[in-house]
């Protein structure tokens, strides 16, 4: 049982955002700044790890027909925990992320990993898979938000990087998010095409 490849595949080869194009709603909505993106990535990773572990543990006990609702309840439980923790310790982040924290429940990455991986794998493998996917998701989110924050406000993590630059406000708005993700997906396709 090799665990390292299971971890690494989520970061590059099967990156949930750029390769699988999953879980894009929060990616676009909260990527206005790197800070929000990291918060979102942390919350999503927490939910991924928690739900993948539990799903892997209960996989034998769950009847096949109602497995999806069961998985969703498991996921929703972890989302609620994440929500409450965030509300208690970082209310500002909670306000910035808004409804998108609750919406981790319906994030295709989380349900997708539970269904496609954890529901028929061992606990350690599921744990590592979730960690890899979570890190990959967070990295992708950070990358997109870095581009948007840099172009949209000339800053990174709140520090001004490009002093003389007139920020293109559009990048911080919804059309900018769609444009950046479209451009990045195209760019990665191009790289993939070159390598093959």
């Amino acid at each position, binding site marked *: 049982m090799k665990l390292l490849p299971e971890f690494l595949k989520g970061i590059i080869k099967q990156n949930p955002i750029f390769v699988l194009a999953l879980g894009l709603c929060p990616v676009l909505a909260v990527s206005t700044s790197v800070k929000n993106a990291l918060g979102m990535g942390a919350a999503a990773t927490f939910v991924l790890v928690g739900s993948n572990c539990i799903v892997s543990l209960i996989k034998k006990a769950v009847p096949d027909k109602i497995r999806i609702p069961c998985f969703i309840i498991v996921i929703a439980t972890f989302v609620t925990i994440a929500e409450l923790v965030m509300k208690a310790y970082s209310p500002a982040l909670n306000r910035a992320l808004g409804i998108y924290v609750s919406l981790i429940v319906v994030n295709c990455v989380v349900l997708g990993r539970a269904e496609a991986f954890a529901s028929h794998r061992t606990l350690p493998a599921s744990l590592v898979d979730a960690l890899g996917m979570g890190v990959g998701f967070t990295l992708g989110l950070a990358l997109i938000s870095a581009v948007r924050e840099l172009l949209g406000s000339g800053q990174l993590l709140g520090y001004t990087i490009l002093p003389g630059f007139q920020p*293109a406000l559009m*990048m911080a708005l919804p059309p900018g998010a769609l444009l950046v993700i479209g451009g990045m997906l195209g760019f990665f396709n191009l790289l993939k095409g070159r390598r093959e």
Partner: protein
Amino acid sequence: MGNKLIVTAAPHMHAHQSTARIMWGVSLALLPAGAAGVYLFGYAALAVIGTAVAAALATEWLLQKMTRRQVTLLDGSAFLTGLLLAYNLPSGVPLWMPAVGSFFAIAVGKQIFGGLGQNIFNPALAARAFLMASWPAYMTSFRAPGFDAVASATPLSALKEGHLRQVYSYLDLFLGNKGGCIGEVCVVGLLAGAVFLFLKGYITWHIPVSYLFTTGILHYVFGPSGLFSGDWLFYLLSGGLVLGAFYMATDYVTSPLTAQGQLIYGTGCGLLTAVIRLWGGYPEGTCYAILMMNAVSPFIDRYTRGRIYGTGKMR
């Protein structure tokens, strides 16, 4: 003459027209309005036009080289895009803005869709909306005509902010003696070019007439002091409406193909323009109205296309 653009199944008649001819023809028709813009706003306007056109041509060349496609600078489409973008900018913008805008227009508005004839949105308008969303402060600071660079409002923005508008006579509006974007102010120049386009058969009446008619009616009905009291002529002569209706809404690639579809499209443009002007947050809605209808245009085409010869009734 007017029937040249009707889309039908074969047999067809050759009409001695080519993309390049039409593109350069439209550019030629835009000349009087541009000349008036330079006369009114000074050399700054000329610099904006030059930068936009040069950047558009450079981007087109670069992208076609990079994607190893045939370089088609001479078909005039990139030139026209740059020209139209410049016409939609205020004369006082810093010169990097037309350059960035032209790059956006050609790269994101056109080449990413596969180049000329494949784009969904009018590239110049997409770029204008991009500049408006990105650097609104520059895009809304207009200068009064004359070489002294006095800050001024456009008639529409003055109206939106609630100032009186006695300063503008219809003649002023018609000739272009008002604040605004470089190419939109001189209505008489634009109309002269439009007449040329009609005579050449480059555009048909469907889109401009349905567009202007709808906007005019709505402005007349929803006037400032109750129903049917609007000053429709003032609204028709203000802002980018004439430029939009004759030169940008009629873009072949991004408007519907059939006459019926064009009437729907023009009416939609008119409706959206008036709604944005009357109740929206922006003083002028032409650009957004045309962009929105560009998005609707494949849908209109889908439901107005003619039946194929020899097949049954239209679905």
